[in-house]
């Protein structure tokens, strides 16, 4: 077993995310909160992927015979004002929600991390200029910025990706810059230079992998905010428009029927909560793991209760 692991590790160059991945694995194995969060997420992601195949009804097909009916055996979450199956629509909304959030987070990471790494590694005035621009972006309220951007570009998945990721780019840039500044002074970075590594491979092999862990936490915390951002933009009619299904849009459409068909708001709301919960639990556990002081707190708490 260990033999195969060793061989595999040697055959392919380890990725820069290896360290972060190891940490994720450790935390999920050791922390109960992380276990619950991760299981919830794995379950929801599987549902999102196989969604179209398990959805019991056509998401668009209206059935005026069963308008605004509560949960029944064939429509377990009830139906909406034109008789579409709410459960099938929530599954479809999950796929969209995850797609928008994932895209926004990936874009933010892919742009923010290199910016921060470059600024931190370069230092001097380049660093100052880049980071002041980042400060300026972070100073603007994120949601407002997203509304302005979507309003300017028009509603589409691409626009949402751009609008939602724009505000979180500086967070990644700041995080990774701090990590790079700290790593740059480490002995193994000096040792890397002493074996004749180029600045590029020093950055990618020695500095970045060891600065990635906080980014992982930021990613798990960025997901909930991206999900709510999409939901609230769609709720306001600025995000996704029909026929694309979005939970925010479903909540908005449920408003007139709150008194007669509260399930129209309750079920999308619960779905949104579950998805966000998964990320928050996992992110919390990761943050605890990274913060040495919180280890002490937890231990102290255990002692108290014992």
């Amino acid at each position, binding site marked *: 077993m260990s033999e195969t692991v060793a061989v595999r590790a040697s055959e392919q160059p*380890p990725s820069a995310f290896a360290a972060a991945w190891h940490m994720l694995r450790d935390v999920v194995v050791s922390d109960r909160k992380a276990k619950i969060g991760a299981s919830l997420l794995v379950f929801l992601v599987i549902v999102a992927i196989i969604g179209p195949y398990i959805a019991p009804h056509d998401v668009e097909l209206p059935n005026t015979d069963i308008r605004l009916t509560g949960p029944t055996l064939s429509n377990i979450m009830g139906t909406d004002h034109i008789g579409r199956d709410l459960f099938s629509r929530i599954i479809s909304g999950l796929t969209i929600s995850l797609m928008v959030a994932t895209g926004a987070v990936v874009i933010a990471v892919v742009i923010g991390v290199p910016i921060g790494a470059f600024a931190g590694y370069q230092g001097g005035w380049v660093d100052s200029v880049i980071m002041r621009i980042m400060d300026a972006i972070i100073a603007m309220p994120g949601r407002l910025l997203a509304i302005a951007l979507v309003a300017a570009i028009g509603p589409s998945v691409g626009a949402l990706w751009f609008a939602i990721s724009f505000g979180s780019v500086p967070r990644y840039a700041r995080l990774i810059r701090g990590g790079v500044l700290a790593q740059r002074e480490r002995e193994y970075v000096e040792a890397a230079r002493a074996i004749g590594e180029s600045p590029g*491979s020093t950055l990618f092999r020695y500095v970045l992998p060891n600065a990635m862990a906080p980014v992982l936490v930021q990613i798990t915390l960025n997901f909930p905010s991206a999900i709510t951002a999409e939901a609230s933009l769609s709720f306001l009619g600025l995000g996704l428009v029909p026929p694309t299904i979005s939970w925010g849009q479903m909540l908005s459409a449920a408003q007139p029927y709150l008194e007669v068909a509260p399930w129209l708001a309750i079920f999308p709301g619960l779905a949104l909560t579950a998805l966000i919960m998964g990320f928050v639990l996992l992110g919390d556990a990761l943050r605890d793991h990274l913060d040495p002081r919180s280890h002490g707190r937890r231990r102290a708490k255990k002692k108290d209760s014992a």
Partner: protein
Amino acid sequence: MAILDVRNLTVDFNLDDGGTLRAVDDSSFTIERGEVMGLVGESGSGKSVTALAIMRLLDSQADITAGQILFDGEDLAAKSEAEMRAIRGRRISMVFQEPMTSLNPAYTVGDQVSEVFRAHFDMGFGESKQRAIEMFERVKIPQPKDTYGKFPHEFSGGMRQRVMIAIALACGPDLLIADEPTTALDVTIQAQVLSVIQDLQRDMGLALLFISHDLEVVAQLCDKVAVMYGARIMEVSESTELFSSPRHPYTDGLLRSIPRRGQPLTPIAGTIFDLRSPPDGCRFHPRCPYAEDRCRREMPELRVVEPVAASTDPGSSGDSGGTGDRRQAACHFPLTGAGAKA
């Protein structure tokens, strides 16, 4: 020709307040191929800065402001960063003091050793892995194959330092700079690591610059010793002669401050001066028991000192021509016997 010939090396640090600090001042020494030279001195005397200057790894605040570093006849001080990259790890390597933090925690130790091969030779993963495992054998790491896939945190300090040595010697360099490689290790592990260094040095015909403040280790390992004090080299000598009959009062003081059973400890009086405002004349005069007026006014150059009368050291009198050249001291009034003054 000497593999390393450092001539009048001077390194200045630009301080944040606008001042400068001379960390290495007009230092010269040579190391022959296959020779082991010790560089000793107290903390802050400029040993590590000398090493980093040779590697051209000084931080941006520090500059080589004068002198030459002739490595195999070529001046490293005049080389570009790209040229230095081809030399570092390939022809000159370095082992650092802190084995616990000198390895990259994100990669396996095997990958870090094979990376050196990939960085300097056009070598694939399979071959570099094979070579890395051979290096693990040479530094006497047990079960080299299993070791390959392990991460640094799975090793003790001694094992990590062996990995560092494997990385440093992977490409068969001409010169190894070891900056206090055993200071962070406990005594038994220190002896093991030293014997690994010593064996490989002999096998590979490696020139070694061994930086340490542990005089006993230096005496055991080195052919030749340079003593630094306050950024300047005070004395250069064959190691046996240095320890039997120091010519510089500072060396003498250092040797007397080694604890010996049954003898009172004689520390050197006073403390090292502030490098930002060095004293006039000889750097050591405020602490020197033999200081005279001339010492306070005039800085002594490092120069060849006459051999002491043959009777004091019969072992060295046979080849006094060779060793006499190599006994250098920066003192107006070099000592002539074991602690006695001329």
